[in-house]
């Protein structure tokens, strides 16, 4: 029996000039067929104007167990948000 086709992750750019967004995955023998299949599986109702496919095996993901070390450092830096600074009403919109 033939071997299973590789898995591809599918990213679609919607109509409104947004970033490509991950929508799901599918199996295909090569990139060209992955695009064709993605068209049929994920854009049957005009959901997109552009498709990216990438082999799932080529994606490097952060480990869930490293969530703390990766993301905690930014939690304490509240001054990165504009609401940290009080601007008097008299100054107007800023």
């Amino acid at each position, binding site marked *: *029996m*033939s*071997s*299973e*086709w590789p*898995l591809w992750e599918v990213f679609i750019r919607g109509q409104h000039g947004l970033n490509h967004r991950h929508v*799901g*995955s*599918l*199996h295909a*023998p*090569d990139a060209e*067929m992955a695009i064709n299949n993605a068209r*049929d*599986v994920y854009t*049957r*109702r005009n959901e997109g104007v552009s498709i990216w496919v990438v082999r799932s095996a080529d994606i490097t*993901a952060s*480990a*869930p167990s490293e969530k703390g070390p990766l993301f905690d450092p930014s939690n304490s830096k509240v001054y990165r948000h504009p609401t940290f600074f009080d601007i008097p009403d008299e100054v107007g919109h800023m």
Partner: protein
Amino acid sequence: MYAQMVKTDAARVKSLDEMEPQERTFQERVDQGQKIEPKEWMPEGYRKTLIRQISQHAHSEIVGQLPEGNWITRAPTLERKAILLAKVQDEAGHGLYLYCAAETLGVSRDEMYEQLHSGKAKYSSIFNYPTLTWADIGAIGWLVDGAAIMNQVPLQRCSYGPYARAMVRICKEESFHQRQGYDILMKMVKGTPAQKAMVQDALNRWWWPSLMMFGPSDDASVHSAQSMAWKIKQNSNDELRQKFVDQTVPQAEYLGLTVPDPDLKWNEEKGGYDFGEPDWEEFFNVIAGNGPCNAERLDARRKAWDDGAWFRDGLTAHAEKAAGRRAAAKIAAE
């Protein structure tokens, strides 16, 4: 629903105090309504139950194409044919979203196909009934997709991220399916007496199997309790069946049809209908593989898989050859 009687391996539902720290953290996250994602720690029973449920659900979408596919070449108009084709194509898409969600739990696509083709995996009992007339296509959209929606809407809030997200996509598309079915029937009941009789006959044959889609009462089932604790399941089978009956009876009345249940009666006190018990012996028989079309459905799936082997192999060979040529051209250029 599309996954009936999913087992959980649980003997009883554990309390938080009885759990090891890792499992307790997991359960607390589920209780808080957080989504569980593929690579995160999860109890083995949770993973296995989800694989069973999602793959059953996926198989149901795929096998579910067959009863309707039966009428694509015989649709009464070109427009109806195009609509039915689009509907059946959606079912294939739903199967694919779900297979992908199951694969994130560590089962391969080929394993799932093998389980379906060998008869080891289950799919919804409803797809083992024949589609004898065009009215059956209307009845399937209205009743079968209607029952599926009843079940799939709460599944959008399932604790497992990939399954919940697949459900969001599916629910968006499912509403078209139910409406196209009801539209077929609205047209037919305005037709000749023979056409109207055909619709009544379709309702007579699909009503009880549709109620069976929700599975037998599971109020006393430990599997159901465990699935609910894990937020894989949100409502009991009886709850959903009641909702379905309450929603569907007025729709049948609008069409001028009689629901084939002598016990059906509005109950003012509970604000819902009382209705009869489906024939559970028939249900267990169909689930066990002895329904009117079980053998035919599986044969059709196996035939499609086997007859497509040369084409899949061809695409693989082409992909390998093209990759080889690209590699050779790169070396030549260096």
